[in-house]
């Protein structure tokens, strides 16, 4: 038992052991309930005396609330109570979303419902609590608000000019945060470079569109003084802390329960004022209050993201060596930074990640984060990565064109060598081990570019325009406290798992990470089955209950497998050792001669069974009298895990897109998409592939369709699913996925994250493919989404608007 544990000693790389589940595509144990419609999403939970919250939302992007008259609404059928901002401020404290390590960052206090002003169209202003949603909606129409409209801050380019009104007077200006990374020497490098190319990129403001809307059910038991919240969230423990702090309760008097979650993608890891209002109203009323956003509310109040304008330049020498990047990023985040992660992280990530796959010297990148009267933005799947990748890869392709080099060749000359690690990038990101060249080689073998190039040339002659685009990328996963903790946010970077064996030899594992459809529970079951030595069917996973599971950060930034999985593995292995030590005492055998396999204590050398775990359970739990007096009785172990050596575990990959542009209509038809990614040790290949595919399609959505369209007055025009377009089955290509495995050495498991890689790289690959298709016309597009209108404009077939 004393030999050091290594991945090899745990059989992590062996598929020959009967319970070697790591690396196998085991079907998800929770899938059956999903296909039978027997899952329990938050809206499926109903409690006795439950009430429903309905919100009156601001029709203005910016307006002073002159007066509110709720008398008629309060008297309407079924209405129990009507709350204004002033009512809720008595029980719910405001919050300010800044992080200390983002130097100079500022934001204004945000209340559950605003006190004096609405600052975006769709901001909840008044809450009705009624016996049914229908009654609440009827009453909402009776609330009379006297609005005094104010000028709306809609254009990020003018947000900082002196003539523009300051959104929150106490802040002094509309600047939330700015940061520059500068290696020095950029101007000289660009002045002396053989070639400099540049472009201005636009990333469209888009939103997550989880199919299950944000949902919450809060109940306050006055006798127990206990707030229980059923919440569709990624981070139950974080929310427990937030509810406690803002509602002035001890954390121990708040319990957050997260059952099934219908998609999150980062949307459900933030503090939403309307959800805080629901918890506060339950606290006041001492009754359960439920709120499920309708789709209009989702579009105006779920976080938006990626509203950036980026000017970029790249300098290369005559041999196609990248000398430097010079980038200026501007982003608008709405009227408040979103609590507690803040809305400055996305811009900060752009600064951290541009140029990420490449070995070059000179780097300068500034992000400027400004206020707007639009829906607040915050972290959405692959935070900042799709932007940084589009800028980097767009510039790399421009450089290749200028040099007359094949884009693959230019990448080969500049990607960080696979044997160069550890490596620190110009903006200071530390890479433990990446595999850009291996990934690119594998991708090229899958894509067979020569064939496609031949096809492209033949078709061009017939007036059919196809394009092939590539995008290398890095992705930040397994974050340490360097992401949020050092900035003062109570967002945990560690996670825990408790594994126990019950009398019949079955195993229960309770984990702080959560499931939103990625398959987190499936991989935890595999890891625990592997680690303890039982059939995977004998493992039950419990997540999403702050009363029960060890404290942890939950699921975000691709940490489920890397952090939660490692905690599960360590606790499972510890339980196995415990089982062996008790069995050894009973069997009078030396512990090192025993092992656990497929639910049996076995002889390590021969593999023959010595005792089923059910028998061990029976003896310890029911016939403790027969055990040696000093034999231990615990069949439960808890381990927590946090990364310590690197602030983040970076992954890498490369994508390719093959598509056709109809130059008459401007429509893009996606023909095929390829991804090779390296997420370290793969626990379940099928689940990883499906994470990648789903991520790619979300990335394609941003590249081609998705956009929150605002008019000049700050009114959102895309508030139905018919206006805000998301990818449909008929429009999506098949996506081939390949892997390189470079396990992180920070953990036994060696897993890094896999959920965001697809989204990080897809828009850049699609952009480069479109520009490749349009090369004969000299037309180029850098503003996402690449709509037919924009494509036709670039082709000069319609006049620019």
């Amino acid at each position, binding site marked *: 038992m004393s030999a050091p544990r290594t991945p090899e000693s745990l059989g992590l790389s062996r598929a020959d052991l009967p319970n070697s589940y790591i690396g196998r595509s085991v079907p998800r144990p929770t899938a059956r309930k999903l296909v039978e*419609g027997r899952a329990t*999403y938050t809206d499926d939970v109903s409690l006795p005396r439950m009430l429903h919250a309905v919100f009156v939302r601001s029709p203005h992007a910016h307006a002073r609330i002159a007066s509110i008259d709720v008398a008629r609404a309060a008297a309407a059928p079924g209405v129990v109570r009507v709350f204004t901002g002033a009512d809720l401020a008595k029980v719910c404290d405001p919050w300010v979303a800044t992080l200390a390590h983002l130097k100079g960052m500022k934001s204004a206090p945000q209340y559950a419902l605003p006190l004096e002003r609405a600052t975006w169209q769709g901001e909840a202003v008044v809450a009705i609590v009624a016996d049914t949603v229908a009654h609440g909606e009827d009453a909402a129409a009776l609330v009379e608000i006297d609005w005094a409209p104010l000028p709306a801050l809609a254009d990020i380019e003018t947000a900082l000019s002196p003539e523009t009104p300051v959104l929150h007077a106490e802040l002094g200006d509309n600047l939330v945060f700015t940061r520059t990374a500068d290696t020095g020497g950029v101007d000289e490098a660009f002045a002396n470079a053989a070639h400099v190319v540049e472009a201005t990129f636009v990333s469209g403001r888009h939103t997550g569109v989880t199919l299950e809307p944000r949902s919450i059910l809060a109940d306050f038991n006055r006798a127990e003084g206990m707030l229980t919240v059923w919440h569709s969230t990624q981070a139950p423990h974080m929310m427990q802390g937030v509810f406690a702090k803002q509602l002035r309760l001890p954390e121990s008097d708040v319990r957050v329960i997260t059952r099934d979650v219908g998609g999150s993608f980062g949307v459900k890891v933030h503090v939403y004022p309307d959800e805080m209002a629901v918890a506060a109203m339950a606290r006041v009323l001492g009754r359960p209050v439920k709120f499920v956003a309708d789709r209009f509310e989702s579009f105006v109040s779920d976080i938006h993201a990626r509203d950036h304008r980026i000017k970029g330049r790249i300098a290369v020498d005559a041999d196609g060596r990248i000398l430097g990047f010079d980038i200026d990023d501007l982003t608008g985040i709405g009227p408040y930074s979103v609590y507690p992660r803040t809305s400055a992280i996305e811009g900060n990530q752009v600064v951290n990640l541009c140029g990420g796959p490449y070995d070059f010297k000179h780097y300068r990148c500034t992000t400027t984060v400004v206020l707007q009267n639009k829906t607040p933005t915050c972290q959405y799947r692959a935070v900042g990565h799709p932007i940084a990748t589009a800028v980097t890869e767009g510039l790399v392709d421009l450089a290749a064109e200028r040099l007359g080099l094949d884009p693959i060749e230019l990448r080969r000359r500049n990607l960080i060598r696979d044997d160069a690690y550890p490596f620190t990038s110009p903006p200071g990101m530390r890479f433990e081990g990446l595999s850009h060249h291996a990934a690119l080689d594998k991708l090229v073998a899958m894509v067979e570019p020569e064939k496609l190039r031949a096809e492209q040339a033949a078709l061009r002659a017939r007036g059919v325009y196809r394009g092939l685009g590539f995008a290398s990328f890095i992705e930040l996963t397994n974050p340490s406290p360097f992401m949020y903790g050092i900035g003062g946010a109570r967002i945990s970077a560690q996670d825990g798992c408790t594994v126990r064996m019950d009398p019949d030899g079955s195993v229960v594992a309770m984990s702080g990470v959560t499931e939103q459809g990625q398959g987190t529970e499936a991989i935890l079951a595999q890891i625990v089955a592997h680690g303890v030595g039982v059939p995977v069917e004998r493992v039950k996973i419990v997540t999403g209950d702050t009363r029960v599971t060890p404290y942890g950060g939950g699921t975000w930034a691709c940490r489920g497998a890397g952090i939660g999985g490692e905690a599960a593995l360590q606790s499972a292995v510890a339980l196995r050792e415990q089982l062996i030590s008790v069995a050894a005492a009973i069997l009078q055998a030396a512990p090192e001669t025993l092992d656990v396999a497929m639910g049996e204590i076995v002889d390590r050398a021969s593999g023959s069974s010595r005792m089923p775990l059910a028998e061990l359970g029976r003896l310890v739990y029911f016939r403790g009298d027969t055990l040696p007096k000093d034999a231990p009785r615990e069949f439960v172990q808890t381990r927590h895990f946090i990364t310590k050596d690197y602030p983040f575990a970076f992954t890498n990959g490369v994508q390719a897109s093959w598509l056709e542009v109809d130059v008459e209509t401007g429509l893009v038809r996606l023909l095929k998409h390829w991804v090779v990614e390296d997420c370290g040790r793969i626990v379940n290949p099928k689940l990883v592939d499906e994470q990648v595919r789903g991520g790619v399609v979300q990335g394609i959505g941003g590249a081609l369709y998705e956009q929150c369209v605002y008019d000049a007055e700050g009114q959102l025009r895309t508030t139905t699913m018919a206006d805000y377009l998301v990818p449909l*089955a008929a429009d999506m290509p098949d996506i081939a996925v390949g892997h390189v495995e470079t396990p992180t050495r920070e953990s036994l498991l060696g897993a890094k994250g896999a959920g965001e890689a697809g989204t990080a790289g897809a828009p850049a690959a699609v952009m480069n493919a479109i520009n490749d298709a349009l090369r004969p016309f000299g037309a180029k597009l850098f503003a996402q989404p690449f709509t037919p209108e924009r494509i036709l404009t670039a082709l000069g077939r319609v006049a620019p608007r």
Partner: protein
Amino acid sequence: MKTRLDVTLTVNGERVTRSIEPRLHLIDFLRLELGLTGAHAGCEHGVCGACTVRVNGEIVRGCLTLAASLEGARVETIEGLSDSGEIRALQDAFVAHNACQCGFCTPGMLTTAADYLAQGGAADRAAIREHISGNYCRCTGYQAIVDAIEDAARRRAGGAA
């Protein structure tokens, strides 16, 4: 608004009678009146398909159908389709291919997929993609769903041959 209507219909083979508001949609009738939470409301304006259920053998959007209009109708939901075993092969294929991630779209998607197969739909990926394009899935990127339906169609064709 005050008027309530009595409606009697068959849901998953069970006769139910309720007195309801005329404005109540089928999806809310199923979820709130009957506690059948398998079908979901994703948009409530007829676009996403999460609310897809079967009425008199045809698939409909539960968020666009008024419950009061269903006097005498035969309604089947994912719960009923599961209990009867009618879509078992399709469900198995969804599990095998990991064609559901969060599962929120899944009951509607399966109901639409069952409709494709019932219409004699072939193991043709483009045709499958077309048929399910009224059902949004935000998680999977669709490929696994197409794989699963294709697989089920192929098996059914094989079984019939």
